[in-house]
């Protein structure tokens, strides 16, 4: 059993291991970084650390949206890299039993788009997509 934070993008539920999450921040002024990839929104200052911010939407292949107050930035630490991802909202924690996890054999990416998801979990009639951080932050 382990805990996951559920974030929403386009009404889909994307779950991130809670161990990797440093904090969840409200939307703030993001400083654009020129010449960076389009999904890089920029950098922010979080308590003295300069942290790059990427758009989970764009990484997942959705269109870019105007950022609104309800958007959230989830700060993750993975392999010593601190990074923030922008999600539509993040306000739920679920407990997932590893036994309920289905590893998707989704090699042609037909279901989950850009290969950012490698496991799927069903809770009741909900479907949670588990984000593969290695692929997200590569």
């Amino acid at each position, binding site marked *: 059993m382990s805990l996951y934070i559920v974030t929403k993008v386009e009404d889909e539920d994307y779950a991130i291991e809670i161990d990797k999450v440093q904090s969840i921040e409200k939307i703030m*002024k993001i*400083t*654009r*970084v*020129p*010449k*960076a990839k389009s999904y*890089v929104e*920029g*950098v*922010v*200052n979080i308590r*003295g*650390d*300069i*942290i*790059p911010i990427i758009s989970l939407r764009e990484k997942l292949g959705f269109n870019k949206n105007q950022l609104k107050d309800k958007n959230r930035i989830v700060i993750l630490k993975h392999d*010593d*890299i*601190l*990074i923030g991802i922008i999600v539509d909202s993040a306000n739920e924690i679920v407990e997932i039993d590893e036994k309920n996890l289905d590893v998707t054999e989704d090699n042609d990416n037909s279901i989950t788009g850009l290969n950012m998801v490698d496991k799927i979990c069903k809770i009741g009639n909900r479907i949670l997509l588990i984000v593969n951080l290695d692929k997200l*932050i590569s």
Partner: protein
Amino acid sequence: MDNNQYLEMFLQESQEHIESLNNNLLDLEKNSNDKHIIDEIFRSAHTIKGMAATMGFGNMNKLSHKMEDLLQDIRNNTIEVTDNVMEILFKCVDTLSEMVDLITEKGDDTLNVEDLINLLDNINSDKNEIAATNIKVTPTETEQDINIYEKDIIEEALKQGYKSFRIKIVIDKSCIMKSARAFIIFNELEKMGSIIYSSPSIEDIEDEKFESEFSIHLLSKFDKEYIKEKLLSISELKEIIIEEILFPKEMSKVEKKENNEIKNVQKNTKTTKTVRVDIERLDNLMNLVSELIIVKTRLEDIESDNKNSEKAATIEYLERITTNLHDAVMKVRMVPVERVFSRFPRMVRDVSRELNKKITLNMYGEETEVDRTIIDEIGDPLVHLIRNSIDHGIETPEERIKIKKPETGIINLKAYHEGNNVIIEVSDDGAGIDLDKIKTKAIEKGFMSKEELNQISKDKIIKILFEPGFSTSDKISDISGRGVGLDVVKTKIEALNGDVDVITEKNKGTKFVIKLPLTLAIIQALLVKVGDEKYAFPLNSISEVVHKNINEIHKVQGKEVILYRGKVIPLIRLNEILEIENTGLNVDLICVILKKGENLAACIIDELIGQQEIVIKPLGKYLSNIKIVSGATILGDGQVALIIDSNNLF
């Protein structure tokens, strides 16, 4: 026992001892008869051996033990310091150093040392028997078992006001860990003076190869009662007999001892009052100071629209304190360049031997202090430059004699402060850089055409040396000449916000001058606005800010340029590079004149904000491929401004 907490200390100390071994061996090579140097070396080897044994690193212990045996023979004059012996000793030190590296990485010291130990044994083999019998002699309270070497030491020590004691210690039979007890005794005694002889030998005692008693010859400034009292505080000792040995002849000299001689001794044993601090803690402290400076700037910003004199005075006071605090923390982080320099004597020795050249390395200003972050980075560039000097600069002894130069070449390594910079010079009295050779190579490799080369100045031709993929060496040697050296040096130095320059004269020599900022963490910067975004330029990359009219932009070969102080310099439209839409046509242009070495460029910005002290923060691994930004800083309002790396703008 959990050794982990000691491991770091062990590694650090081993490294220090290896460094001192290296230095002392180099000295020994020059004066092979200096007893003090041999003593130093012996002490270091002995300490390493002891530490390795305690930490359970068998290989390291074994090697240093063998090394110590050899040194002992050198001390006793039974073995002469020949080239071969030196070579083996150096090899031992290298192997020990490798072991330390291995322990750091993997936590064990498994390294094949059989060959080396065989070499050591071969040297020792002739002497082993004598040495062995020497050790087995049971001590009698006479002078006879004090060999010549020890006598020398005793005489010397007596002159300096030491007293000589013979101490016999009997450990209680019930004591379980005799060697541990002995170790404590040795420790205690070493605090009071130096042990010059022990029977059985220290090694045998450590291995518990003794019954229950042993005797020690101690030189100490303390008197008999004091030593006895100290030893009595150690438990499980059955008997302690202390006897002062008087040498009638020497005693008369002792009375005549000069005060300054005492001072000398004190100098040698002087312990500096220092504390070892984990680098991470220092970094953390530095970060906190940076935060404080940011908050201070923020307060100043608020203050500017608020007129309250008492508050203003308080903020001014705060500003003074933060500046002082910043200076103080910076000083703590400063380390002498000696840390980098210390490895060079050994390197010069090895490389010059390999190339059959005779070279003296002189080092000046080793005490010059630089920020830790810089120290870690300049090692490699300096290695390149020094290797270059040895390989390309200094001629072979035959050539040097032919052109009436002293047979031995000189390499000078010099460090000193200049304003807010540190200058490091590497110079040699060798052949100098052959300009014609550079020209031929440049044409050959297609860097420039003959016509172009004829037009540019001597300095510019030398600069070609720093181009990637350029090397003038005819043959590719192991040392340098792969054409990667100098451009790596340049990139590395520039990444540190520094600069490299070359001065060369044919047959007189070459001098490389490296200029580096004192610190990388906090710099003065010019804040500007491009569109709605704020950016910072490091002040040391700016030559001036000028206003130009839009009519003053000219075009040369399709590129925009302006005239600046009679020079034609390229114009950079920063908004285009930063992908910011132009906010409209301005007639009056604000140009920041950027400098990169001797090259200038004018960079158009929209608005000047002002000069400010900024704290540099890295953008992090994830965005490391963005070349035009060298880092970021946090502004007074908590927002992030990017720092432009002007080296990559033009």
